[in-house]
């Protein structure tokens, strides 16, 4: 539904987006990750037709955003970074305005606004000027504006930034509910969000796509993927050396923990599963085990190692 080909944007000497290509189809929720200044927002601005690409094309439901901007934009819902809205309007008048701009009139318009207001919990603040709303409510107004016309493509730039934990949860379930009928691209700095809502994650840095895959595949790139956390009571002398000798084990790190306990992280060789060996070891020794768990890997660690290659080795 969204097809991005060789997209590039330069601002003078700055290359903000560098030959990015990807496709997002119905049912996909693509999480855009990347450090500050990676080019996430710039890419979104080109997809939504606000910025003209230096090179490359974007098509939305078959409409080229540069050649047929009106048709493409009709199929798009967009929450820009920072959720801008006209400050002197109330959320209600603002949403009525956006709806009218999208071609809805009369009862149809009012019904849509009512339904959307309910979806993003704006009821309490409908008549208060947007500029006096808290950051989280402003973000919800922006979200409401983006989904008002039930677009088949949704582009959300940091949709949960500034929301409280309850609202984050609400917005994520809202996105999950809409996911089946839509192609969604969202950017975020919250990595757990990727696990919570995205079917696909893409890390970009310095304008280039570094990796693209399911969140699980990303996690699998973690050094800690399938590593075992083992925590024991007492001195646990010789445990580290014993763990180290198990088949498939690469290294054993000692973990910080409460005094009187010892913790270990047993890291497997790439592609190896060692839970069997470790639990056998636990079985065979008279250790006082308080924790034994498998780590699925850490997205933030993958993120760091991919976007800061120089430090990744340390």
């Amino acid at each position, binding site marked *: 539904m969204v097809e991005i080909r060789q997209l590039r944007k330069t601002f003078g000497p700055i290359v903000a987006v560098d030959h990015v290509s990807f496709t997002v189809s119905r049912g996909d929720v693509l999480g855009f990750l990347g450090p500050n200044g990676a080019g996430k927002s710039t890419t979104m601005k080109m997809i939504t037709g606000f910025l003209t690409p230096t090179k490359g094309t974007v098509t939305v439901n078959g409409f080229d955003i540069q050649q047929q901007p009106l*048709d493409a934009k009709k199929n798009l819902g967009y929450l820009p970074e920072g959720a801008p809205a006209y400050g002197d309007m109330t959320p209600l008048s603002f949403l009525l305005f956006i709806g009218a701009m999208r071609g809805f009139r009369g009862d149809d318009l009012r019904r849509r606004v009512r339904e959307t207001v309910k979806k993003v919990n704006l009821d309490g603040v409908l008549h208060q000027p947007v500029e006096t709303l808290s950051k989280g409510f402003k973000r919800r107004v922006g979200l409401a504006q983006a989904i008002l016309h039930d677009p088949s493509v949704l582009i959300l730039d940091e949709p949960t930034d500034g929301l409280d934990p309850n609202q984050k949860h609400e917005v994520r379930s809202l996105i999950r509910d809409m996911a089946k009928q839509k192609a969604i691209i969202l950017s975020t700095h919250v990595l757990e969000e990727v696990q919570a809502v995205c079917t696909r994650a893409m890390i970009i840095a310095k304008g280039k796509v570094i990796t693209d895959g399911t969140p699980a595949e990303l996690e699998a790139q973690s050094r800690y993927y399938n590593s075992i956390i083992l925590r024991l009571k007492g001195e646990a002398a010789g445990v580290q050396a014993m763990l180290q000798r198990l088949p498939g084990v690469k290294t054993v790190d000692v973990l910080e923990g409460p005094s009187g306990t010892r913790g270990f992280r047993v890291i497997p060789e790439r592609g190896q599963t060692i839970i069997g060996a470790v639990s056998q070891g636990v079985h065979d020794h008279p250790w006082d085990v308080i924790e034994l768990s498998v780590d699925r890997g850490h997205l933030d660690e993958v993120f760091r190692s991919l976007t800061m290659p120089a430090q990744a080795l340390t």
Partner: protein
Amino acid sequence: MSRIGVIFKRELIGYFATPIAAVFIVIFLMLAGAFTFYLGDFFARGQADLLPFFNFHPWLYLVLIPALAMRLWAEERRGGTIELLFTLPVTLWEAVVGKFLAAWCFTGIALALTFPLWVTVNVLGEPDNGVILAGYIGSFLMAGGFMAIGSCVSAMTKNQVIAFVVSVVVGLGFVLSGFPLVLDFFSGWTPQFFLDLISSFSFLTHFHDVSRGVIDLRDVVYFLSLIVFWLFATALILEWKKAE
């Protein structure tokens, strides 16, 4: 077309939802009154017309319209709503025209609220109401010219103060180019067609006759094409640097 209407309505309501409308209208009426009665010797002239009133309009608009126009695009840029607006299914042209028409219409409302003056001359004497109507039409067209300049300048910057100052300066150029002082400076050593060219660009030259009741099609075309030109420039500038 209907999207122009939607933008027009939002903008016009916006003026009245903020103190802008009240402040602008009150100051406009006060200045118009002060100019007419004190500087224009409205009563002492002993003539039943509104000429002293209309004579000051170029100067009134020179300062007041940039104050209204400066926010047209600079505010959208500053607040980031420009990104919202131009990712809606709307063309650049529709947005430029919708916002301009609302602002122009707003000055029209302020102008219409000077009707007590018209009532006054009709009570005091027997003015030629056709001349007065022509004056109002000319004044409204001229307001549109100032507003279109302001719209274009506002599209260039995020900063409303800069937008205001630059619009006043550009507007001043358009007023002064018909001023005898400026024309005298050029006359004698420049060819006549150059003099005519300069004065033909002036608001004063075109407003002068209209405010005296002579609605020449050329004057109307002048103001309308001026408006179209500056709005076109507005759209070009937005297209070129809307994201900056």
